[in-house]
């Protein structure tokens, strides 16, 4: 990949919220380059700012939030400068579309499925009447809804969760966007349906040439769909690399912790690795590495200075002092060692 096909470039984004007089910093200077046609997964624990980060691209922050600083460059425009709703209207749907986590509530219960998809078709594909309807049926068909002609007239409550999620995806697709942001698109679904939806997304990505950002905390999903992975912790992307790099050659202790706490990597009958403690309070100013207090391998500097990115490879970088030349050598947890072995095999090949 080279820089020429960077479609979206986020630099040092800071997002804050005002919550009853107190200011909370949800995104603390995160940066990200998104390449055209790729699928990027953002992982991280709950509250780490995954949703806020991506909502900021579309101007969908809740009313009490704002972009404090940083830039979001898209097609030569800095979206972070957008103030008015009218500016965002140009972006939303047409350029960015979003699939939310909650399939049960993301659809207006009082309007028929068809009309909700059609709204997007009319708006972004400039189709009207029968043409629009035809298009809607086509899209519904694409997302795997059987008998779309009949389903067109039904209401959300007549659909199961998986079907509704398909409809939500259909709406996103109907906008004809360049970038599709899927915010935990399958968390609420059963594994079997989840797998179907992921397959569907992959298929649609090919067909419509989409760039997709997946937000999830399920590393299994990530492994399935992502080209690249960004790991977020406390409002910052602390490690980013290709899927294989992050899985098999993770560098940040948080990423280690995340991976090694997966039962799949555990040994039956033995304890899993677990992250102690609780995430930091975003109302407070965070000094140094946000993960430090929970990090068993924390260095003193972790409490003093915030680490910059250290590149591991051109595509892989992480924010941890452990990558600093002066840092002591640190043994990663057992399961990580196990993964690294695979990495070595792979890189040797």
């Amino acid at each position: 990949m080279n820089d020429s096909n960077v479609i979206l470039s986020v630099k040092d984004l800071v997002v804050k919220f005002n919550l009853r007089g107190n200011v909370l910093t949800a995104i603390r200077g995160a940066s990200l380059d998104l390449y055209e046609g790729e699928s990027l997964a953002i992982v991280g624990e709950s509250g780490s700012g995954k949703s806020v980060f991506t909502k900021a691209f579309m101007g969908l922050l809740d009313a009490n939030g704002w972009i404090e600083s940083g830039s979001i460059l898209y097609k030569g425009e800095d979206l972070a400068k957008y103030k008015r709703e009218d500016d965002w209207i140009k972006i939303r749907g047409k350029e960015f579309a979003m699939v939310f986590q909650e399939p049960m509530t993301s659809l207006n219960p009082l309007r028929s499925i068809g009309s909700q998809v059609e709204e997007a078709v009319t708006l972004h594909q400039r189709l009207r009447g029968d043409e629009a309807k035809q298009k809607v049926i086509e899209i519904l068909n694409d997302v795997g809804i059987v008998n779309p002609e009949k389903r067109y007239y039904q209401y959300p409550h007549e659909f199961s969760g998986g079907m509704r999620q398909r409809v939500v995806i259909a709406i996103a697709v109907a906008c004809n966007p360049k970038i599709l942001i899927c915010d935990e698109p399958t968390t609420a679904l059963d594994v079997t349906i989840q797998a179907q939806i992921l397959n569907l997304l992959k298929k649609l990505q090919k067909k419509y040439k989409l760039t997709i950002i997946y937000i999830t905390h399920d590393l299994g999903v990530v492994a399935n769909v992502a080209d690249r992975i960004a790991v977020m912790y406390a409002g910052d992307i602390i490690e980013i690399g290709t899927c294989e790099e992050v899985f098999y050659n993770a560098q940040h202790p948080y990423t280690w912790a995340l991976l090694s706490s997966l039962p799949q990597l555990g040994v039956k009958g033995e304890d899993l690795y677990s992250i102690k403690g609780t995430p930091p309070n975003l109302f407070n100013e965070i000094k140094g590495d946000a993960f430090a207090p929970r990090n068993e391998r924390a260095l003193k500097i972790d409490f003093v200075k915030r680490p910059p990115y250290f590149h591991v490879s051109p595509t892989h970088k992480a924010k941890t002092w452990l990558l600093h030349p002066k840092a002591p050598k640190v043994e990663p947890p057992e399961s990580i060692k196990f993964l690294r072995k695979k990495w070595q095999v792979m890189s040797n090949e």
Partner: protein
Amino acid sequence: MLKYTVKRLLQSVVTLFVVVTIVFLLMRLMPEEGYFGEGYEKLDEAQREAILTSMGLRDPIHIQLINFYIDLFSGELGESIIYRPKVPIVDILKAKIPYSVKFGLAAMALSLIVGVPLGVTMARSKNKFWDKLGTGYIVFINAVPAAVYYLFLQLYVTDIFKLPILFNPDRPASWILPTISMSLGGTASYAMWMRRYMVDEINKDYVKLARAKGLREKTIMVKHVLKNAIVPMVQYLPTSLLYTVSGSIYIESLYSIPGMGGLLVDAIQRQDNTLVQALVLIYSSIGIIGLFLGDILMATLDPRIKLDRKEGAR
């Protein structure tokens, strides 16, 4: 839908029967003077008994109840005894209801026309100027007894705008102030509910999705939020509509509007048993019918309701 309607209808009919029966039984507890006119004290015990017997009030209670229902089904509400002796209650009501309904409808329309947009504006500018202003208004209307502000309105507004103080069917200007006064409460509550429902709806996920779709804020508000927010309110419209019949006690007496407002008060004050009974019946039935219509209306607007609970069973 049909099944649902039938089911709700049956429910309503049962409730209505129970309410009517209870009202009927309660009325048997009213003092018996209420069945005599002016001449009450002039009659001796035997004469009174004779009159009560002739009115069927000495029959066993279940016979009375049956007769009462028979009368009721033939649209017979009896005659006023004291309020306007010997005048059929139906006639009394016939003269009164049109006034109350006219004012009620006008006031209701006004409250809706003002209240709904106000609520919408408040919801959209949550915690900003309009919201605060509207909230102030709602607080004022809810907290200050109507008697107080009605009076001040009548006193000062008529003076400033040279409006007539009293209602006169022949003077259109005399409709203005009573209608406005009457609509104030409704405006406040419509605005309040509208705001609440709007805020609820605005925070729902489907609105986020609509935004993400790229719909304009206005479109979202009108096509999604407003429509959905109005639905729960619509449920109460039939009841409000029907209750216009009952008029406003304050407004009607302040402005001399010959509606239903003061009738019940008068009837009770004068202990006109038959009239009280008829009125209580009407009011109670209105409530039940209103609820029924509201539910049906709701069901036609909200596709989820027809399913009747199956979904939310958990």
